[in-house]
């Protein structure tokens, strides 16, 4: 809005063109979303092959169909499973990565730099190299078909990127604050919890948002580790509508994709406020 206001005030032809261009790009970017929205009100046969953006006579069948569940499993089961994994991951990442980051950023100990370098090195490992060894490991531990393989890593700070992000953020915090805390008698844990954590809010919120989205959308992990459809997550449930051997239910799939977007959207909207909030206060910390 403020951009539009500025354009009106300046009334420069360049500014006008710039905004028109931006609107055109916006239309292109939003087109798939609008198409999906329109398609969710079409009958399945019309979704593929027909070019209209919106159906001639919209139907709600795709959404009412969702209440029947998939393969005799209520849709809510998939959502609860996904929510459990996503929220569990967020809690794990926020706690474990920040604690690890505190150690790397604020505590001096032998081998710190080497260990930090090794941790960063894990970022370079492609996921596909780890699939089979990890599967064998969890198989030996008899943890297949539980949520543990999907969550345990998050509680052990294996997300090196988030650790790195937080380390960088913590290094930016003034040393004087830690020193003041120490003079007041704080140990490391107290400094971590009462001084560093509140100041790190933007980094924590960023990590939380990305973790939530990644966990919610993760497909490979749940595909490999969950063996019973009633433990499946939304991303697996979405694929139950279609197979090469069957008459595909595109309508149901698209309706469910839209419903599946809502929690991610809600999470983002709820937390981005804190993100901006955190930025503002961190700017003042001086």
């Amino acid at each position, binding site marked *: 809005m403020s951009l539009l206001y500025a354009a009106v005030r300046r009334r420069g032809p360049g500014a006008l063109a710039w905004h028109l261009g931006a609107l055109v790009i916006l239309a292109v970017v939003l087109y798939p979303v609008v198409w999906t929205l329109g398609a969710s009100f079409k009958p*399945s*046969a019309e979704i*593929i*092959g027909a070019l209209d953006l919106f159906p001639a006579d919209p139907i709600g069948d795709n959404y009412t169909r969702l209440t029947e569940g*998939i*393969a*005799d499993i209520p849709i809510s089961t998939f959502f609860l499973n996904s929510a459990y994994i996503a929220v*569990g991951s967020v*809690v*794990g990442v926020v*706690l*474990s990565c920040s*604690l690890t980051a505190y150690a790397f950023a604020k*505590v*001096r100990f032998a081998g710190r730099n080497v260990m930090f370098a090794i941790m960063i090195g894990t970022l370079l490992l492609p996921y596909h190299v780890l*699939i*089979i060894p990890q*599967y*064998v490991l969890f*198989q030996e531990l*008899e*943890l*297949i*078909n*539980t*949520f*543990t393989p999907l*969550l*345990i890593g998050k*509680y052990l700070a294996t997300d090196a990127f988030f650790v790195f992000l937080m380390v960088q953020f913590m290094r930016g915090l003034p040393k004087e604050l830690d020193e003041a805390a*120490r003079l007041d*008698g704080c*140990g*490391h*844990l*107290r400094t971590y919890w009462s001084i560093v954590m509140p100041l790190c809010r933007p980094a924590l919120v960023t990590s939380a948002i990305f973790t939530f989205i990644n966990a919610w959308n993760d497909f490979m992990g749940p*595909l*490999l580790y969950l*063996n*019973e*459809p009633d*433990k499946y997550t939304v991303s*697996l449930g979405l*694929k*139950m*509508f*279609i*197979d*090469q*051997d*069957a*008459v*595909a*239910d595109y309508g*149901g799939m698209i309706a469910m994709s839209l419903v599946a977007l809502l929690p991610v959207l809600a999470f983002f909207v709820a937390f981005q406020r804190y993100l901006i909030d955190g930025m503002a206060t961190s700017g003042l910390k001086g």
Partner: protein
Amino acid sequence: MSQNNGMDRRQLLRLAGLSAAGLGLTAAGCGSGGSGSGGPVTIRHSWWGADDRAKKIQQCVGLFEKKHPKIKVKTDFQQYPDFWKKFNTQAAGGNPPDVIQNAVTFLRKYEAKNVLLDLSPQVEKGNLDLGGFRSGLEKFAEIDGKLLGVPVGSNSMALVIDEKVYEKAGITPEIGWTWDDWLAGLQKIKSGQKIAGDAGPHGVMYLYDLILRQNGKAFFSEDGMGFGEAELLPYWTEALERVKSGLYADPGKVEQIKPASATAKGLSAGEFTWDNFSVRYSAEGRSSYGLAPIPSTDGKKTGQYLGSLMLSGTARTKHPAEVATFISFMTHDPEVARIMGYDRGVPATTAQFEAYQPADAPSKAIGAYETAIADAGVLEPITPHPAGADVIEAAFLRIGADLALGKTSPKDSVKQFFSEAKTALASN
């Protein structure tokens, strides 16, 4: 670092305990019950499919558990590509499901890796009944004396046609028609109704296999390719000409409307595919669709065989007897046939075939088609594909499509196909 060190450690330990407790919480409620001896045995069954098949299979499993109270069956399913991704990981990790849905393309591949269970001892013990299979399906998945699977349903290649277009053109395909008859039909349709006669068969491996068989060859030999550049180059050159002249549908449009079928969307009057896929056409398209027989070279031999989905056990299973009992039940019980219908193809045993009378027109047509080709005596035994066949099938389809789109010349396409096929055969 400071005097506070001791306290720090204690606090840290407490925190560590806290997060460990959190983990314990996540693990709780997900413990899997181990199967003790004597009590009920649990076997796992995975297949590819969607919602609809899942409901049917679940019903069959319920029936099975009622008749065999000592065996429990846990089921799991994904779509086709995801199913194989998961199965490969599970097999490599030493934890494959006990019973899987399988196809002939994968037999040699997994046999070479010792993944599949040899079911023949179970036949001798009487846990698996091999009697009563329809002709063309006996000893379906026997490789080097090992029984690696049992067919649950059959399908065969067919020409799905838009009946209205064919009727208007006055063409009635019959068993015994030849490729020349077929081509004359395409030209008639093209000149009379301005529709391409076929969606473009040049990428369909299973059709080309039939053409080769009609001429005394085959797509695959036991361990490699059964044909060479000398056969494929004229076939693809001719295909490209027919695309250009409009006898085959515009490949650009065919790609665009995927995953819908070109014939269902009115781009062509017909296309070659598996007969059981024809159920989809009436759901996707507006015309009425029928099954026409595969044209032949000499008016007799079509080279056809029955393909099939099958059930296979996996070699690591701890319960081979129960696996065999389950497979036997799924292939012979008439009630299973009434639940499954033609979902996995036409039921493989005569008992099941007779138990289910389809009510809908497409399924009736499939049943009639398979009876007709069996009566005509054109069916031959299937040759199990060499390991790597699945990769080669995908390459044939992709390179065939690129050729039609004009991205590569026939000569380069043929070269590329054989080089990819060679790699696939060597690495599998």
